[in-house]
C-alpha cells in the first residue's frame, strides 16, 4: 500500500488528502497542536501532532516532518505551498530520508528559486527578461543603475517573492531609503539581503503560465492565468485564461515557459510568472514558483484535470500524460480571508458556514471550526467556471452573494465590492487597480 505524508495545513492539506485517496493512496498528515481537531486532521488516514502551534515548532520544522513521515511508513511527501515547499535544503533532506518529494529536485529548486539566477537562465534561453540591474552593493552603484533604467524603479529581493523586499522609488531622493528598507525586509524574510532594481511598470498585468514537467525534459503547459487583482502584492482574484492579453503573446509566454523549464528537465507542477505591459504590448519574465500555487484550481477547471493528482501520481511513478488535453471556457477564483474590513486578521470560531450551491469551494474550514491566529488568514477559495468570462463573472457574483459565514469577519463583502466594479466586469485591470480604485483611502491600515 502506498502512503503519502502531507506537510501542510488548511485547504491545500484537504485537497492533497482527497487527491491521494482518489488515487488509492493512504495519507498521514502532520499537524500542530492548534490544528489537532481540524478538518484535514480528520480527513487523513492518520494525523500526527508535530509540536505546538507556532509554525517554526511544527509546520516549519523539517526534522519533525521527516521523522513523522518516515516513522509512519510514508514513501512520499507533499509540501503543499508556502511553509517548506520551496526550501531546497528540506527537499534534499526528504530525498535523503528515502522519500519521494512531490515537487522539483533540490537542484531545480535552486536553479529557479534565486531570482537573479532564474533571470540569467531565462536570458540565456532567449526569454524576454526586460532590463534589470545586478545585485546592488552600495547606494552609489544603485543610483547609477536606477539612472540607467529610468525612474520609477522597483527594488526586488533576489531570494524570494510575496512582495517582500519590494519598494518603489520615484526619484533618486527615494532610493537610499527604499534600498535600506528592502534589504532589511529581504534579510529578515529570506536570510539573504541581495536586492536588484527593475523599471517600475505602472499599468501592468500579472500573467502566469501553469506548467507540469515530467522530469525528463518534457513539459506540458496548461495555458495562462491573470492574477492582476492584488493588494500589497498578494493575489486576491485569479482567472484563466488571461483573456485580456492577445492570443499570440499568450502563446509566446507558454512557449517561453516550456523552454525555461524544459532546459532544466523540471519535475512536477510549476508556474512561470510574467509581467504584461499593456501600453507597450510586451511581456517580460518575472520569476518561477517551483510548487503548486494557491490559484491552480482555475487552470484545473478549464482543462478538466486534477493537478494535485498529477503531482502525486508523478511522485509515485504512476503519471501518464493524458492523450488529449482540451481547454474550455473561463474560470475565476477568489480568496476568502478571515479579515475584517480594515484587512486586520479576524481569527475565531465559525458559527455558520453556508457555501453557495453549484460552485467549487476549496476550504479547510466549516461550521464549528476555529480559525487559529497563528497562520495565514485564507479560509476558503471560491471557484466558478463557465463557457465565457461574462457568465463566469455573473456566477461569481451570485456565489459571493450566497456565501454566508458567521462568527468571524471575512473578506466576502470586499470581494463582492471588487466583483461588482465596472472595471472588473469589463476587465480593465492592472496590478495597481485594486489599491488605486477600490480600497478607499484611510481604510488600508493593516
Amino acid at each position: 500500500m502506498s502512503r503519502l505524508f502531507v506537510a501542510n495545513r488548511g485547504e491545500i492539506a484537504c485537497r492533497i488528502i482527497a487527491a491521494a485517496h482518489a488515487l488509492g493512496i493512504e495519507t498521514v498528515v502532520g499537524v500542530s497542536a492548534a490544528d489537532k481537531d481540524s478538518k484535514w486532521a480528520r480527513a487523513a488516514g492518520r494525523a500526527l501532532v508535530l509540536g505546538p502551534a507556532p509554525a517554526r515548532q511544527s509546520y516549519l520544522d523539517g526534522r519533525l516532518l521527516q521523522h513523522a513521515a518516515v516513522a509512519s511508513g510514508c514513501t512520499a511527501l507533499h509540501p503543499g505551498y508556502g511553509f517548506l515547499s520551496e526550501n531546497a535544503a528540506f527537499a534534499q533532506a526528504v530525498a535523503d530520508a528515502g522519500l519521494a518529494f512531490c515537487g522539483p529536485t533540490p537542484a531545480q529548486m535552486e536553479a529557479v528559486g534565486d531570482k537573479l539566477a532564474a533571470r540569467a537562465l531565462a536570458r540565456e534561453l532567449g526569454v524576454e527578461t526586460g532590463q534589470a540591474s545586478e545585485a546592488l552593493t552600495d547606494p552609489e552603484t544603485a543610483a547609477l543603475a536606477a539612472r540607467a533604467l529610468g525612474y520609477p524603479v522597483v527594488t526586488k529581493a533576489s531570494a524570494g517573492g510575496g512582495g517582500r523586499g519590494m519598494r518603489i522609488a520615484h526619484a533618486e531622493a527615494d532610493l537610499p531609503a527604499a534600498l535600506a528598507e528592502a534589504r532589511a525586509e529581504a534579510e529578515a524574510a529570506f536570510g539573504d539581503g541581495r536586492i536588484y532594481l527593475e523599471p517600475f511598470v505602472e499599468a501592468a498585468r500579472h500573467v502566469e503560465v501553469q506548467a507540469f514537467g515530467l522530469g525528463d525534459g518534457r513539459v506540458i503547459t496548461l495555458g495562462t492565468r491573470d492574477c492582476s487583482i492584488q493588494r500589497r502584492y498578494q493575489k486576491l482574484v485569479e482567472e484563466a485564461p488571461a483573456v485580456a492579453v492577445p492570443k499570440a503573446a499568450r502563446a509566446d509566454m507558454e512557449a517561453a515557459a516550456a523552454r525555461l523549464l524544459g532546459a532544466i528537465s523540471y519535475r512536477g507542477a510549476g508556474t512561470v510568472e510574467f509581467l504584461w505591459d499593456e501600453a507597450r504590448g510586451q511581456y517580460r519574465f518575472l520569476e518561477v514558483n517551483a510548487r503548486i500555487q494557491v490559484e491552480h484550481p482555475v487552470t484545473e477547471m478549464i482543462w478538466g484535470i486534477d493537478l494535485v493528482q498529477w503531482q502525486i501520481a508523478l511522485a509515485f511513478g504512476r503519471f501518464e500524460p493524458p492523450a488529449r488535453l482540451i481547454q474550455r471556457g473561463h474560470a475565476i477564483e477568489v480568496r476568502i480571508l478571515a479579515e475584517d474590513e480594515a484587512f486586520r486578521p479576524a481569527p475565531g470560531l465559525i458559527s455558520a458556514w453556508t457555501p453557495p450551491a453549484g460552485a467549487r469551494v476549496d476550504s479547510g474550514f466549516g461550521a464549528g471550526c476555529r480559525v487559529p491566529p497563528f497562520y495565514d488568514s485564507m479560509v476558503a477559495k471560491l471557484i466558478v467556471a463557465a463557457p465565457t468570462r461574462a457568465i463566469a463573472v455573473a456566477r461569481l457574483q451570485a456565489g459571493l452573494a450566497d456565501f454566508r459565514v458567521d462568527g468571524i469577519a471575512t473578506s466576502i463583502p470586499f470581494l463582492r465590492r471588487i466583483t461588482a466594479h465596472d472595471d472588473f466586469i469589463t476587465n480593465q485591470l492592472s496590478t495597481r487597480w485594486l489599491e488605486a480604485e477600490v480600497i478607499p483611502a484611510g481604510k488600508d491600515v493593516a
Partner: protein
Amino acid sequence: MAISRADIDAILATFEASDWRTIHLKADGVEVTLSKDGGPVATPLATPTAPVSPAPAPSPPPASSTVEPDDGSLAVTAPSLGSFYRAPKPGAPPFTQVGARVAAGDDLCLIEVMKLFTSVKAPHAGVVTAILASDGDLVEHGQPLFRIRPDAQGTP
C-alpha cells in the same frame, strides 16, 4: 500574560509547602483548584471534574502537567513528536521505572527526531506511577508519557 507551566508549578509547590487544605485560583482563562483531601472540592467557582483544569491555551507548554483525578499524579507529556526511548542507549538500563522515585530535573526518557535526541526531565519530585508509551514508539506532541505522583511535602 498567560499562566505558564512554571507558574502552575510554583502554585503547586507553594500549596504543597503550606498547611492550606484547598486553594482556588482563577486568572487569564485558567482555573486552578487544589485540594489535599484527594477529591473534588465544592466551591462556587471550581470546575468540579478535575482539581487542576487549565483552559485551552493558545500555545501549550512543551511538557505540561495535569493532575489525574484518580491518584493525584501528574502526567508528563512529549515536548514534540518523535521516537520514545526509555534508556540512554540500546541495552542500557532504563532511566526510570514504575515505582521509582525521581527528583525534579531527573531524565525520564529520550525523544529522538531524525537522530537528534532530547531528554525529557521530571518537572517535579515524586514517584513514577505509570509509563504510558513503549520503547521505540512514535509519540506525538502533548502525548502523556509518564505519570508521577508528587511528594506530599509539608504535611504533618
